[in-house]
Each structure stands twice: as C-alpha cells, then as structure tokens.
C-alpha cells in the first residue's frame, strides 16, 4: 500500500509548480482532488501558442493519478463547497498569486477554522510575504530572480533560461516540505502552513555560490560546462546527428584509465596533462582530442568503453532514449498507460522504489469534472437534485 494511502488532498493548484507538488503526493498514494472550473481553465489545460504548438503542456502528466472536480470559486456557494471539501481533507495545496486565497475567504486561518489540523502548502513565485510577494512569474523568471539562470551559461555569453524543470523542482521542493509538515501533524496533531517560494528554490540550487560570495566577496561567474577543478568535463559529439556523450574524469586513477582506454599512453607523460590543474588549463586542447575520438563512435560505445574502466560517461539522453531504456523500464521509471482515447503512451512513473509501500501511477489524466459525482455526492453527501441545481447555477462549473 503506498505511503499516503488514506490521505486526501484538496488541490487548488494551477500551472506547473503547484500541480507537480500535488502530483508527487498523488504518486505516493494520496487521493488528490483537483479543483478546476470551466470558467477559467488551468492555463496548462489550454493550448500554449508561445511554445509554438497547440497542445496542452505538461498537464496530462502532472494531473495523472488525480481526481477532477469543477467548482466556481467566484460564487459564494462554490467557496462554501470548497470549505466542505477541505473539512474532509488532510492537506490543501494552492498556487494562486498571494492574496487570492485571502480574497476568496480560503486562507489558512479560514481553512483551519473548518479543519483545525489541516496542513496547507502555498506555492508562489516569491512567497506569501515581502514587498515582491505579488510579482507574477513563470519558470524562467524564478530561475532569473533566484540567480540560477544568471550563473547558467557560457562564460562569454548571456544568462540562460531554466525551463520547466524549474517549475517542477519547485513542486518537488514543496512536496518535500509538505510531507515533513504532514509527518509532524501525524505525530503531534498540529497542522501547519507551508509557504514555498519558487525564486528561493532557485536560490537553493546556488546555495554554495551565495555562501562563497557572502564570505569572500568573490562573485561567481558563468562557466559553461567547465568544472573548476576537473578536466575533461564536457559533452562530446558522437557518430550520428546531434548525438552527444557526457564525460567526466575527476581523479588521477580515472585519468590513467581514461588515457589507456583511448589508447593515448603519451598523455600520461605530457606535461600539459600532468595534473588536474594543468589539464584544466589545457582543457580545450584536450576537448578537441577527445572529440576526435568520440566523433567516430556511437554514444553507447563510448559509454561502454569508459564505464568498463571506471570512467564516468553517459549519453546525452533524448526523451526517446529515456522511454526506450531497458534500465528505466525495468525500474518502472517509465511506464505504459492507456490514454483517454484508448491509445497506449509512455509516461513517467514514481521516481522512488519502496520495498514495502510502493508508490504507484494508476490512473491517467481525468477529464474536467470527471469525479464531480464521487466528490460532491459520496464525499460531501449532496443529493442528485442538489448537484443538478448547483450545476445549473454554475457553482459546479
């Protein structure tokens, strides 16, 4: 049985970061009820022309394992129903801009009044407090404000956008924090409000650089694929179109094994490559030599040759590589699911293997309002007539 079986989540989240948090909880077994309205669809349920395509973005994946209900929170009776749902839930997740839950009458204090031990997680761009709490943002902007995008890039180039992994890492961080809060609630009976700021998640990825700057005054710079103490440390072209392999040679033992594997014994007596420091100095010459070797080989062959001698190498995986990989399929990282139209498709399963309480991906993305009857009827005890009237009044909408 998954670890969160029996735990119910009232999921008010929108976009990507908040829904990914709830997705993690759903994979861990929580009954996660996504609250939506046809009046204003989750933007990730809608097409995204700015990406240059008309399909929804990550919606299907991050909504899998969840239930969907429709609730119009612009109507007072919609808010009342939301509170009734919270009263039978253990966790509330939301990702509106700070202030919206206050305006709706659904802030932590209001929800605590209907469920005293509720654990609530709020995910926003800049957090629930501070002068910039109301700032709008999306993944690349979290990365920018938090410094991660500033430090990502080639040393002679501009800063770089961090894409949806920024959203999802925010959601993962939120899941970590709310799980800890729920554990505390289970032990003490006390709920908590967890406030997660996406830009601070980006700060967390550069915590070492922030500490270095704070202590020494040295401002860290963009360094491309280079590592300060290590060479070779790069991505190299292989046989085929856009085929790349990552190679890292971090220790002297690895360097000796690497030179031997490439049949370049002269490198071991070459003064340019005598130490990590000199290899770092001459890294571009080394990169050119290594590229000449990798270019004639497949990514898989390079990986096999180098891993066999204890050198870290791995292909730069495409999505196709990931879904085709026997290691990942064997682990359940990639799973087959049947989509809404009966088509089989590959999806990402839970990223953990529990020996006793396995996490599960059991259900594909729900249609909008697919579980209205279960939630409003069975869970909240509304009659069929009441539900019909609420639908007609666009409360369940």
């Amino acid at each position: 049985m998954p670890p969160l079986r029996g735990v119910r989540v009232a999921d008010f989240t929108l976009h990507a970061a908040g829904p990914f948090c709830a997705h993690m909880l759903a994979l861990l077994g929580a009954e996660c009820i996504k609250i939506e309205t046809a009046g204003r669809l989750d933007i990730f349920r809608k097409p995204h022309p700015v990406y240059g395509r008309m399909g929804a973005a990550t919606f299907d994946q991050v909504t899998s394992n969840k239930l969907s209900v429709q609730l119009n929170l612009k109507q007072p009776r919609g808010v009342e129903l939301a509170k009734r749902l919270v009263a039978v839930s253990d966790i509330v997740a939301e990702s509106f801009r700070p202030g919206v839950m206050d305006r709706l009458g659904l802030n932590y204090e209001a929800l605590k009044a209907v469920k005293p031990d509720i654990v609530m997680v709020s995910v926003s761009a800049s957090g629930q407090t501070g002068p910039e709490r109301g700032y709008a943002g999306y993944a690349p902007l979290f990365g920018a404000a938090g410094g991660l995008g500033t430090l990502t890039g080639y040393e002679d180039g501009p800063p770089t956008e961090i894409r949806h992994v920024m959203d999802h890492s925010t959601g993962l961080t939120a899941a970590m924090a709310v799980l800890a809060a729920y554990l505390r609630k289970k032990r003490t009976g006390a709920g908590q409000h967890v406030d997660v700021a996406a830009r601070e998640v980006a700060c967390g990825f550069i915590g070492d650089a922030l500490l270095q700057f704070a202590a020494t005054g040295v401002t860290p710079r963009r360094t491309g694929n280079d590592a300060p103490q290590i060479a070779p440390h790069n991505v190299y072209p292989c046989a085929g179109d856009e085929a790349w392999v990552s190679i890292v040679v971090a220790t002297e033992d690895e360097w000796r094994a690497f030179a031997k594997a490439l049949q370049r014994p002269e490198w071991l007596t070459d003064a340019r490559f005598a130490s990590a420091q000199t290899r770092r100095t001459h890294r571009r010459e080394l990169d050119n030599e290594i590229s000449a070797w990798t270019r004639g080989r497949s990514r898989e062959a390079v990986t096999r040759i180098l891993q066999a001698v204890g050198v870290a190498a791995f292909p730069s995986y495409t999505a196709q590589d990931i879904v085709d990989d026997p290691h990942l399929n064997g682990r359940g990282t990639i799973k087959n699911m049947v989509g809404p139209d009966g088509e089989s498709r590959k999806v990402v399963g839970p990223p953990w293997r529990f020996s006793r309480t396995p996490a599960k991906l059991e259900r594909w993305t729900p249609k909008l309002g697919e579980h209205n009857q279960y939630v409003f009827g069975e869970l909240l005890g509304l009659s069929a007539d009441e539900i019909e009237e609420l639908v007609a009044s666009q409360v369940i909408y």
Partner: protein
Amino acid sequence: MISDERNAPLAGFTVVEHAEGVAASYAGRMMAVMGATVIKVEPPGKGAALRRAEPLLTQEPAASALFHYLNVGKRFVTCDVESADGRRLLGELMARAELLIDDTPVARRAALQLEPEVVGARHPQLVFLSVLPFGAAGAHADYRAYELNVFHAGGEGYLMPNGLTLETFPDRPPLKIYGHFAELIGGTSAVCAGVSALLVRDEVGGQFVDVSVQDANISVGCFAIQRLGDGVLENRHGRSFKYGGVLECCDGYVGVLTLEQRQWEGLVKLMDDPAWALDPALRDPLERSRRGAEINQGLRAWAKTQRVNDVVRRGQALSVPLAKYNEPADILESEQSKARGVFAPLDLPAFGAVPAFTAAFQFNGEALALTWAVAEPGADNEAIWCGWLGHETAELEQWGRHGAV
C-alpha cells in the same frame, strides 16, 4: 529564527548519513534544517572528499563552500567502515536512528555489510534510504556518474540551452545548468521518499527505499516525455519560446514571458505602445507565435534602452511577468530576501558570521534556522560515541590508535 521549535517538523528524528556524494548529502542537509538530528559519518583523517570541492572559501587549507552549504546543522563523527570496529560502530548508530542515508556504490555494499537485506534483518525498524546516480537496481546501477553525467542521463541536458544563449552559440555542445542541479534534485526526491517511509514506519516498520538521481531528473523533466507521447521529440533548437525570454537592458538582463493575452497587452503598454506592437494581427497569439523573430527584434531593441530595476518594477505593476537576472549580491541585499529572512547567520572559521541560505520554504510564517556550521571531521566523536552511545573515552582512544575513528 524559529521561535517555536515545534515548527521544525522533523525535530525528534535521528538520521545517520553515510554519504560521499552531493545528492545524499543534500538529503541530509534538508532533514537537518527541518529539525532532524543528522549524524554524518566520514572516514577518519581528512574526512569526506567534498570538504575540498569547489567553490572554495579558502585555498589553504581548502575549505569548500559546497561542503559548508550541504552539511550545515549536522553532527560529525569519523568511523572507518572498512574495519570491523568501524562497521560495528556504524551498526550501533543505525540501531539508535530512524533513518539511514547511504550512497555506497552497490558493488561495495556487501563488503561493508550495507546490503539492504543485511541492514533490514539487523535493523527492522530502520528506513534505509539509498541515494545513487542510477538507483540500486538495474543494468546501470553500478555505473559511475558525476553531476554532468546524471544531468544528461535525466534528459534535460540534451535540451539546454534555448533562447538567446542558443541563438548566440548555435554550434556549441549542450549546456549544463550551474552547479549541482541534478544532484540536488536527487537529494530533494530522496527526502520526499525518506519522509514518506517515516510516515508509515509505525505501521509497517523500516524498509529499503531506492532513490535514483536519474529517476528524479526524469520526473522533473516529464514535459519532454509527454511531448514525445504527442509525437514530438524535443531538442534544444526547437524548444525556445517564440518570443520573449532573456533581454539585455543597458545595465543587465531581464527575463520576460507572456503566456496570457492580458500579459502581452501589458508588455505592449510597458513599451509605450510602439507602432510595430500595435499591429492588430499581433493580438492573435498564434500570429505572435508565427512572428516571434520579428517581435524579438522589437523587444530587444526596446530593452537595450531600459534599466533593469525600472523595467521590472513598472512591468510587474502592469502584471507583466518579468524578472531581473539577479547576481548573488542582488539576492543577498534584496528587500525581499531580508523581509523573508531566508538568510541566517552562520559562523564560518576565518570569516565570522556570514549570511547563509536556509531553505526555500517556511512553516507557519517563520524562516528556518541554521543551527550550527560545519565542524572538523570527528568533531562530535566524544559526544556521539561516548555521550550518546555510552562508550568509554578509553575505548574511543583505542579505536583512534587503530584508525577506526
């Protein structure tokens, strides 16, 4: 600072961290800042190799900012797990803890008596949280990997960079995200799993939890897998936003992204309604997508005349999603950071009290605290081996002579 220690949700839990790598160390860090007692076990002598990893605070002796960041708030003991005495001591720690974090490579676990079955049999109530680049099972379980390798194994490496960086350098190899992004994702995923196992520990006892850094990165990169299911194999050349992204201003960079109509309209207003943006055809989001290059030309020319802080302030007032590409100094000095209290003073040798990042979340409106800074390897040997486990000081001295601690 936390005024009510009950807000630290993992207070009362004891975690043993037998880990060399970044991912597992980060898992221990996050448990420590959330209140757990985390005991880090290092080899005697110079301790973990990460103590000397870049970026450095000082060159001689080498003091790693990365190590300080990853290991704040932990207790530090030394123990040579290659020796029988060392393994016995590690076992004693496990017997008193609720959770073990371990990143010993699979092939070495048998020699150290750290196989899941052995640990499970000896410590049935212990959660064994294994954190490895490719997990503890599968064809790649014994593969060697560093940050760059797992970043590319997770799929995001192939898709970076996009936008202005790619336009500037279209022929360069894929680009990694700064630092240890992939490994920190792995560590965060590990905490999710470890805490989940603690949640059911009273009901089911301990268990083995296999966390793969690659799996965690595939999970946060699930967008590309969904797109593949839609029939599109993404690559970095096709993934850029059609317009917006990184803009160079006269004094730095901003990012802008307008997904909604009202945001685009706000952006046009922010630019003082230039004639090119008022083309009625550009009210259609699909047309904007088609004419992204033309829009970028106008946006970039305008941005060059703007100052970063001014454009962000005015843009956000118009609900245009904009952000400055902040430098560390900006972050440390920002009113937002100060108001949130996300930096806490940390006493670092040779530097004194330095503001250090705590965590990206708060409980009940209170920022987390940093309890204490990194200490020397074995700094807590006396307190843990003798004070907590009840050994005599003479035993500790004897183990020291034999190199076991």
